[in-house]
């Protein structure tokens, strides 16, 4: 018995190693670039010859990186919460209820997901200037929520649909209102889907470049991906590769933490008790 278990453990460990290698080899290359000194940046080697932490020190001491980091965290968190909440409400309605305009809403969401954002940036820019939202947090939060809603709605609707209707019916028969059924029965069971959607929406807001560079002007609201475009090298023609790589590593850390914390919530399946009766 123990021999088989050990074999299984070893087997899974090997598979895990493959996954880690797949995910991390390019990441290691970026980390390596962030540790290479400017002089050895282009020496073509995978590992730095004389690693240095200079790039990290440079960017962490620079207000032009730290303020954008703060902006990124705040804007992405707020956008994610709003998008998942209102997306979840709409998704439940779409998945479970019949109402006029259901198809239109779904179609409109898809249209927004599909439309190339590059064509929408200039009109959005003009609107925000007119409304005084240019270069502010709401100025980014509003588009982020809007363009994250389609994914949130579709994903959450799909996960709600996977849950059997008997659950709500059971709750309704026990005297709960539809909203109580939703809040206390469906939502806890749909946690894997909610968490997944939150992670994906967060990453979308966190890594967006187009809106960040077009709808901001100063570090008041500029986020990190846009801030990378403003890093300077030693001359006009030299890219600050080390600083950019270091910045990329630094801004991936919150995502790693976010995921590490939430991935526990993607728990395995329904317990049998919830389904019967």
């Amino acid at each position, binding site marked *: 018995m123990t021999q088989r278990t050990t074999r299984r453990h070893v087997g899974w460990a090997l598979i895990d190693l493959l996954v880690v290698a797949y995910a991390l080899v390019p990441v290691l290359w970026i980390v390596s670039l962030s540790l290479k000194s*400017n*002089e050895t940046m*282009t*020496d*073509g080697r995978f590992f730095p010859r004389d690693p240095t932490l200079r790039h990290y020190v440079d960017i962490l001491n620079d*207000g032009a990186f*730290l*303020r954008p980091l*703060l902006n990124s965290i705040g804007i992405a968190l707020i956008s994610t919460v709003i998008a998942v909440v209102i997306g979840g409400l709409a998704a439940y309605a779409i998945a479970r209820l019949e109402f006029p305009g259901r198809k239109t809403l779904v179609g409109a969401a898809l249209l927004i997901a599909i439309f190339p954002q590059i064509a929408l940036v*200039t009109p959005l*820019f*003009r609107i925000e*200037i007119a409304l005084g939202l240019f270069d502010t947090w709401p100025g980014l939060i509003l588009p982020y929520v809007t363009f994250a809603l389609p994914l949130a709605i579709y994903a959450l609707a799909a996960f709600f649909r996977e849950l059997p209707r008997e659950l709500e019916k059971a709750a309704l028969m026990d005297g709960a209102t539809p909203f109580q059924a939703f809040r206390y029965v469906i939502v806890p069971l749909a946690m894997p889907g909610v968490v997944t959607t939150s992670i994906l929406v967060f990453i979308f807001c966190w890594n967006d470049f187009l809106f960040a*560079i*077009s709808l901001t*002007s*100063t*570090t008041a609201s500029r986020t990190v991906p846009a801030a990378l*475009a*403003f*890093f*300077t*090298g*030693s*001359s*006009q*023609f*030299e*890219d*600050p590769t080390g600083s950019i790589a270091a910045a990329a590593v630094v801004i991936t850390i919150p995502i790693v933490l976010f995921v590490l914390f939430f991935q526990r919530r993607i728990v395995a399946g329904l317990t049998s008790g919830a389904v019967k009766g």
Partner: protein
Amino acid sequence: MKRRPCVSVLVLLGSWLATITACAPVPDGIVLGLYKYQENYFDEVLARCNAEAAGRYTIEQHILPRDADGQREQLVRRLAARDQTMDIVGLDVTWIAEFAEAGWILPWTGADSMAAVEDMLPGPLATMTWQDTVFAVAANTNVQLLWYRTDLVPEPPQTWDEMLVMADSLAAAGKPHVIAFTGAQYEGLVVGFNTLLESYGGSLLSEDGTESAVDERTVQALALLQRFATSAGASPAVGNAHEAEAQAQMENGYAAFQLNWPYVWAAMQVNNPAMMDVFAFTHYPAVVPGRPARVTTGGLDYAVGAYSRYPELAREAILCLRSRENQKFMTLNAGTPPTFRSLYDDPELQAAYPMLDVIQDQLEHAVPRPRTPFYQNVSTVVSHVLSPLRQIEPEATARELDERIQDALESRGLLP
């Protein structure tokens, strides 16, 4: 229990972030917005000009992205939206015609205009005007030089054909032989091709910039480019080489020659000081023996935003930002070539900047890129037609260039 460490960490983080990101004091009085990419050492120039303004106005810099396309995107979007805060804009020399024609920058007249053009070298001067009116003031300029290794090339080549022959013999001897050239499908390729074409006496566009001027000299330039691309001197990666890659090819010892801007001098001192002993420069190789090459200029010009509320003050500020003293400071520290003819005789600059004479020489014959409001279209199209370099067929490619440039000038069809 678990919450407390979390909260205190957050509080600490928050206060640290607050101190680091504290807002700068807001200046009162008139504020001139300067929109420009961030140049090293430029803060000093800014401080000097603000001191000179003595309270009448303060210049505040808003930095633009590092890459030229990103800068143009920001400037165009905001000027088209009639941004009033854009008093001074830093423009790449190729945008002047476009911005002037669109009415996004103001013309200079009278005494200001005289002050702007005074003592300017012909190369930079050509970038400052559009349809005989001054629209911008040159802050710095740039020309490419031929860089080579004295240990491999005792006598630098005078012409391209000589250079190709030298590269071939170096290759046969198994030594580093690449001619580092910016051959990727982007603006750098257009710069290089423009140099070759103008050196043959030809030109991409007619004098008034409204028609394609492709003729047999274009065919000659294309033939040379094709000869280069299929020779031993061309690296296999030339089709993806920007300035940084060309620079790396030289610094890492693969190239014997390099055609690049003067920034590589200071870069080599930092990145590979051991090679400085054998790192030398000379004039850009000619295409016709005896006739010096006509090199394409780069550089930065300042202009006044059309919706600025203080155009007079903006002009004054611009003349200060690019004054003789400030240009000298920038050349000494940031390494950008100056635009004043008199500065080229300055002993301090001569001592610190050994390439000054060669650069001045080339600036006397330098040419701007084709001046037309549709330059972006033309450039996109030219670099697309020329790529990949190895597959150029001089006659056929020239015909294609002719057609596409004409389409680009009339905004007809799609840009690739």
